[in-house]
């Protein structure tokens, strides 16, 4: 039994944080080795060190028993190490071939034909099903990921690192990927897999290294360890995956979507003939794999995107074509998917960020003049209530907050403004368990005040924990709406893959 990779006593410090603290990782030849850890635990950092993007402050690396120094991705590549990054490293307007050969072109003059042939052969050997002459922006996310895999294989990598490869895939694509990984192993390669999804680890991994706050907690044999055990090792305490909540007290209809069609960025229908209503006092969760029209749907409701046809009404008002501000005034709160892009102005203070939706009206301002004092009092209230921690309180710049605190600030802003409809998109993305629990409780509290909540999440757990009803989306269509109490993850999972309720239940 030989270790193909050994990372010994690795330490890596960033300003103000120790990302890797004396981490040791040993991967055996021919195994799939999973790495599990919370957000910010240091997984990506560790892999970046292995791949030569960062340099470790302390510790050393052995590859196939020999100590090596990896200073650049080239070094890694020469050692047969390849990596599929969390964010794809593909040039959108290049062909598959061009992306794959980039950096390994061989000659001064490009020989696209030969390369393309070689890629075709490789693709067939591993069952990747890729057309080398396609342009990246014209292929699906799943295919793009397979291009990343091909990139490694083209470089003769036999140690393959996958950093959260399934976050962006459909269940079907995830299954395919698992199969591909098994193929890779059977061809004698080794795989390091980073994922937050325990069932995936269970499905393919042989062993799993668990890290928490930059330190290794333990290495477990996946076959003999339960998911609950792994989860508690990761977090440091037993994890309850359930949220306490009373049955919903459903009231009048707040959000009514009728026969809605919305274009996506590629100018094709991203949301198709969609119907949904959300009532006061309930949480409706939208389940679905990322990229199935959730973004378009939410943007249409909030007014960030125009509607092709159909109607949206809010609390009895037709808002199909209303201005964003008008919608906010009628009562939409929105926790956006991308907190840094949409949610906050990073270079402004917390108090300005808290007021960003309401600054123009009394009591925040009068006759176009801001009431600075009120702004600050209000912001103080929000950050106290939601425990937003920062260096200089309301005068801190939003960009200086940690990810979790940024998220808490946004949730605070949206909840305190007390909207009739709160739309929460991935409200706990990137948060630690403590923060997740708090935000979940706030969402439930908002429901219990008699408001409607529309939740979008790619995590089935979260959907099941919070929702009273679950609407399942696939390729822009509503597959079905089911009561949470009357379904299970299996059934919803099938529907997410596009299988209708009845067919699934046959």
């Amino acid at each position, binding site marked *: 039994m030989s270790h193909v990779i050994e990372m010994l006593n690795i330490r890596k410090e960033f300003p103000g944080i120790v990302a890797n603290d004396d981490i040791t990782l040993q991967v055996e030849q021919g195994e799939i080795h999973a790495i599990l850890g919370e957000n910010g635990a240091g997984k990506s950092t560790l892999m970046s060190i292995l791949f030569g993007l960062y340099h470790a402050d302390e510790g050393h690396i052995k590859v196939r028993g020999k100590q090596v120094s990896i200073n650049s991705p080239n070094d890694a590549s020469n050692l047969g190490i390849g990596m599929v990054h969390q964010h794809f490293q593909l040039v959108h307007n290049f062909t598959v071939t061009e992306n794959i050969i980039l950096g390994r072109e061989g000659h001064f003059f490009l020989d696209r034909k030969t390369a393309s042939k070689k890629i075709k052969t490789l693709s067939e050997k591993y069952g990747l099903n890729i057309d080398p002459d396609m342009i990246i922006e014209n292929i699906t996310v799943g295919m793009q990921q397979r291009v990343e895999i091909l990139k490694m294989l083209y470089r003769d990598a036999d140690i393959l690192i996958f950093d959260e490869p399934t976050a962006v895939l459909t269940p079907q694509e995830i299954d395919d990927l698992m199969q591909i990984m098994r193929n890779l192993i059977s061809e004698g390669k080794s795989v390091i897999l980073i994922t937050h999804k325990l069932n995936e680890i269970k499905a393919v991994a042989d062993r799993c290294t668990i890290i928490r706050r930059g330190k290794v907690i333990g290495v477990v044999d996946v076959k003999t360890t339960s998911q609950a055990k792994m989860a508690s090792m990761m977090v440091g305490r037993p994890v309850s995956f359930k949220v306490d909540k009373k049955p919903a007290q459903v009231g009048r209809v707040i959000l009514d979507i009728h026969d809605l069609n919305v274009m996506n960025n590629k100018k094709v229908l991203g949301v198709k003939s969609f119907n949904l209503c959300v009532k006061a006092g309930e949480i409706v969760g939208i389940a679905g794999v990322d990229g199935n029209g959730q973004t378009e749907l939410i943007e249409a409701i909030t007014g960030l995107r125009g509607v092709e046809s159909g109607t949206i009404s809010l609390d009895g008002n037709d808002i199909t074509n209303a201005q*964003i501000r008008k919608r906010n005034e009628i009562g939409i709160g929105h926790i956006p998917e991308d907190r840094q*892009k*949409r949610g906050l102005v990073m270079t402004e203070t917390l108090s300005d960020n808290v007021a*960003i939706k309401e600054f*123009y009206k009394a009591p925040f301002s009068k006759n176009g*003049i801001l009431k600075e004092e009120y702004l600050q009092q209000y912001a103080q209230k929000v950050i106290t209530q939601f425990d937003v921690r920062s*260096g200089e309180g309301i005068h801190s710049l939003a960009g200086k907050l940690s990810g979790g605190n940024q998220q808490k600030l946004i949730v605070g802003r949206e909840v305190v403004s007390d909207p009739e409809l709160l739309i929460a998109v991935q409200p706990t993305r990137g948060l630690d368990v403590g923060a997740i629990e708090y935000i979940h409780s706030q969402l439930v509290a908002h429901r219990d005040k008699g408001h409607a909540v529309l939740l979008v999440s790619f995590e089935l757990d979260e959907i099941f924990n919070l929702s009273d009803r679950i609407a399942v989306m696939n390729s822009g269509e509503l597959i079905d709406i089911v009561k949470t109490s009357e379904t299970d993850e299996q059934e919803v999972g099938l529907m997410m893959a596009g299988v209708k309720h009845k067919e699934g239940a046959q």
Partner: protein
Amino acid sequence: MKERKTRELKSNAFLVAISAVVLGLIAGAILMASIGSNPFEGFLYLSKGALMNIERIGNTLATSTTLMLVGLSVAFAFKTGLFNIGAAGQMLIGGLCATLVAHHVFLPRPLFLAVLILSALLGGALWGVIPGFLKAKFNVHEVVATIMMNWIAYWSIYYFVPAYLKGPSLETESASIAISQSLRAPWLTKLFNGSYMNLGLLVAIVSVLIIKFILDKTTLGFELKAVGSNRFCAEYAGIKVNRNVIISMMIAGGLAGLAGLTYYTGYSRNMQIGVMPSQGFDGIAVALLGASNPIGVVFSSVFFGILQSGKGFMNAMTSVPPEIADTIIAVIIYFTATSVLFKRMWDGLFHRIQMKNEKKGLDLKENEKKPEEVK
């Protein structure tokens, strides 16, 4: 002890600006020395030329006036995340409108001044709003659009002035504006001993105050800044991004138009053709050095005004070519652009000083603690 929160000393915009200025002056000194001139003499005569007597102070302020307004225009656009490189064209059109009014509108003085100022404001605003509109509607980058607008203004003036505003014999410039129809005020001219000082300075200072008020205290300023810092968040929050981009470019253009007013109807009293006003670009320097802050703009415009205004006398007294002033300004801007360097340098320095002090502080504390522990 783990989560010690001491407020770290950080370099600020002022320190960075001063560093850039000092380096610019040093570069100027080196250039002077390299042609065999005495830099101290050079700077002495440079400052004398700008400030030697009340008349020269007046001239310096008149030079600064235009720079101040252009600087304010560029700074204002910066606040909204836009780069207004088109101040030169906006100056030209603002100046053209004002010149037309000066030649053709006859009203009681206060009313006339209001119309004059308004015309320049509107002319500049028009020239600014076009790229603003193209940016908002078609996402045309404002840098390219405003550069195009500069040249369109330049060539329009080139043919318009000789055709419609020609003086009795001069082909290259418009007919001169009568003092009574210009921004010059006899009491100011007398007060400053016959300098070109004019009411433009008042216009500039009032504009600075208004802009500062808008940016700091009003909902409009709040919106503009939000759009400037993160247009996606602004859009999400219900702020009309496109409208704000257009408004911002309109105001920026208007301010540059006022700069044209002060230059063409206050400082020079006529318009030259075939000249792209260099203030349009110097104003970028003013805004950058002033950290896009209205008050910063006041200081930096006076500083650049001194350089521009004193260089002629320096040239008369020494053998240093006046272009040294522009070189110094350019160097300052390069160093402002690369201000990261100073930030790192100062932060590093402060950090080291702080570490030293902290260490001392720690030692002290430990000394204090020990006896207690002994107890």
